[in-house]
């Protein structure tokens, strides 16, 4: 009597070179449900979804759509079978309009008037209003993602695959997205939500599949599951979630960072992003910056790091290390070896630079030692940074930042895209360094991370720095972040 799942994957195996990405993984998504696909980085979540979407041909295994076995030669085949996918990295053409992007994805004819009406009707039917004439390149990130969803659903998809869709969104936007997934399922569709975030899986989905090293380690209804159950399945260690509460920082330690009346312009030099900022960070203290994307926290951190120019009082003890959030374009040169990347970060102050000359053998030895100390999984100091996984790249970035023995460390999203174990490793290193007297100014878009890591929290909202009293509740901080006056719970 029960209908077969709308989409099911059974015994999927896929090997890339020496890496067995999937080893008999699977998943079954029934109509009317939202299905969470959880797993650490490299567990095979994206690979499994790429198989379902016809982007990757599996070495073994069966794909069934509504019970019937299918094989997809390419994504077009998957779309024809009613499967749509929203990728982690957006795939719209910035110079095209919304309507043109939808036409491109769906294979519709580009006759402007008819197309515009068709796209507008589609967007409204889906409850995702979009201006068909807006240029994709001008859309803010949430609308860009909305466009991706409309594209995925344009050809009457019944199964929607969302690859880590919430990473780029603010909390209210996340709620909207999850509501959309629920609505789509309510109309008889099925949704697979790839995510890192346990709370999203718990509050917005019906069933959960957890992958670990290419295999399914847990598949169950969400009802009755706890965050601890899911976390322990993901990492095989439930304690990974529990981090020790930060010890209070000593109040009389020397001041390492002092800002007064600081103003910073946006990176393009136009509008001011930060105005009249006041902040003190002392030695041994981790100050967490909580903010919703685009409120000036990026410019504040970059001014302290010396990357952006600023006006006003800015006293920062030297040397300063900076962990940039985009590790593959700003933190590392992917084509460089690990040694070269370490040399880049330490610059002329490094012990292997004497006068004009650079002693590569010494840099290489030090890099080899760093790799070992920080448990960076790499073939060696001569490996290219691009050959490392994101977590190992980030470990190298952190190792390098601390190697300078900085007085001040400024870190933007230091664990973005990392799995729990790697996140924990980075946090431990930051705490250790603070224990030795390092002043840390850290921002994370994940409020939980800020609260877990920081001795003291400040909120940046609309370019102003607002101190948060000790013991303030999440809701209180959330209200400050959203700039809601007096939203005190």
């Amino acid at each position: 009597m029960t209908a077969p799942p709308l989409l099911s994957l059974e015994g999927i195996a896929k090997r890339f070179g020496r890496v067995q990405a999937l080893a008999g993984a699977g998943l079954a998504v029934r109509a009317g449900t939202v299905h969470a696909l959880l797993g650490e980085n490299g567990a095979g979540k994206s690979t499994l979804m790429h198989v379902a979407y016809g982007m990757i041909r599996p070495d073994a295994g069966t794909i069934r759509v509504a019970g019937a076995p299918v094989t997809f030669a390419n994504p077009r085949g998957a779309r024809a079978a009613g499967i749509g996918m929203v990728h982690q990295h957006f795939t719209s053409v910035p110079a095209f309009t919304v309507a043109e992007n939808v036409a491109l994805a769906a294979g519709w004819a580009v006759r402007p008037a008819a197309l515009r009406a068709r796209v507008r009707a589609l967007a409204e039917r889906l409850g995702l209003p979009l201006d068909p004439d807006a240029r994709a390149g001008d859309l803010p990130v949430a609308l860009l993602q909305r466009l991706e969803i409309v594209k995925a659903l344009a050809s009457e998809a019944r199964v929607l695959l969302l690859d880590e869709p919430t990473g780029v969104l603010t909390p209210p936007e996340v709620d909207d997205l999850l509501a959309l997934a629920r609505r789509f399922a309510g109309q008889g569709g099925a949704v697979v939500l790839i995510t890192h975030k346990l709370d999203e899986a718990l509050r917005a989905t019906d069933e959960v599949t957890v992958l670990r090293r290419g295999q399914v380690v847990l598949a169950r209804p969400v009802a009755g599951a706890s965050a601890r159950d899911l976390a322990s399945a993901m990492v095989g260690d439930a304690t990974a979630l529990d981090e020790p509460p930060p010890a209070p920082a000593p109040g009389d330690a020397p001041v390492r960072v002092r800002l007064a009346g600081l103003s910073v312009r946006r990176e393009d030099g136009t509008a001011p992003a930060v105005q009249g900022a006041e902040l003190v960070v002392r030695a041994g203290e981790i100050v967490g910056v909580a903010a919703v994307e685009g409120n000036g926290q990026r410019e504040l951190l970059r001014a302290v790091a010396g990357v952006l120019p600023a006006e006003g009082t800015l006293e920062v003890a030297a040397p300063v290390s900076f962990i940039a959030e985009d590790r593959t374009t700003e933190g590392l040169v992917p084509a460089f070896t690990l040694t070269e990347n370490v040399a880049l970060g330490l610059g002329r102050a490094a012990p292997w630079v004497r006068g004009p000359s650079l002693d590569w053998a010494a840099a290489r030895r030090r890099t080899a030692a760093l790799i070992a100390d920080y448990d960076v999984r790499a073939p060696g100091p001569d490996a290219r940074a691009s050959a490392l996984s994101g977590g190992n790249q980030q470990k190298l970035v952190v190792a390098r930042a601390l190697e300078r023995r900085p007085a001040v460390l400024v870190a933007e999203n230091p664990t973005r895209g990392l799995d729990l174990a790697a996140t924990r490793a980075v946090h431990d290193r930051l705490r250790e360094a603070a224990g030795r007297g390092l002043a840390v100014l850290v921002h994370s878009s994940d409020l939980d991370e800020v609260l877990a890591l920081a001795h003291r929290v400040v909120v940046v909202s609309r370019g102003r720095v607002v101190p948060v009293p000790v013991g303030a509740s999440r809701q209180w901080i959330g209200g400050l972040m959203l700039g809601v006056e007096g939203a005190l719970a």
Partner: protein
Amino acid sequence: MSARLRALLVPALALVAGLLVIALYLTASGFDAAQGLAAMWRGAFGSWYAVSSATLVRAIPLALIALGFSLALRAGTLNIGAEGQFYLGAIAATWVGLHAGTLPRALAVALVVAAGAGAGLLWVAVPAWLKRRFGVLEVISTLLLNFVAESLTSLMVQGPLQEPTHVYPQSDMLPVSARFWAVPGTRLHAGAVLAVAAAIGLAWLYRRTALGFELLAAGAGPRAARVTGGLDVPRLAMGALLASGALAGIAGAAEVGGVSFALYPNLSPGYGFTGIAVALLARGEPLGILASAVLFGALEAGAGAMQRDAGIPSVAVYVAEAVIIVAVLLADTLAARRRAALAEAGA
């Protein structure tokens, strides 16, 4: 296979491919391929005179220009204007050489070289400034200035620098005391020393110095160089571009001071462009550029000999040069794609 061996294998195979294309072209066009290639060989390597006075003399400007191109490219800028910078260097060197007849030879030659370097640098300073001030792409501006430089050379040899009788479109001959020293009995001149010194200097800069690494970082990862390395990327790129122009200017000065002893409108047979091929074949490695320059010098010398001795048009050789470059670029692209695939599989 070691990486070093593989790095040599690709250019070697490319060279073989290039020679095969010459042979095919000659056969298809009804020439005797063996006879043509033999003439090429004789023209390039057949005698000490051919090596020293044809091949190496052509290799000198190619090496200097290629070294400059690779320096700019290392810092992420494309200097397509070496041809123009060469001519500006030649103009300035001619002017200085003509006025330096009374000076001691060492000083006169040094001034000729300095004039060439300065003029090449100033000529590329225009695109460098346009890029920094207005964001004009240096690929376009350096290229377009080549045409201006060639016209300027014509203007010079029919105007201010024309020989005293005002009959020929060329300058007067440089006084002997302003000419480069040469190996007796050959045309191999002191420009070779400049090219080798520049190659050794750049090899040291690239491999052993912080600045050399900073230039590479500015080119390979400009954002990381700025944000993580704290480097002034535009300044590094501009410095490399200016030095690149200076090297091309020195090439022009060396051609006037060591080979032609006078300024002519067609002084360069496209050295500014062939130099780019020389740099690409050597993948920007300074010592490799010396070898690559000798190879291209030999091809050009051989092309001349083939036309002279076997009556075969020299364009065949230019086709072969293009084949060599395309083969190298293809091999690099495939290698990069393979690396990317491996990296993806490892992630």
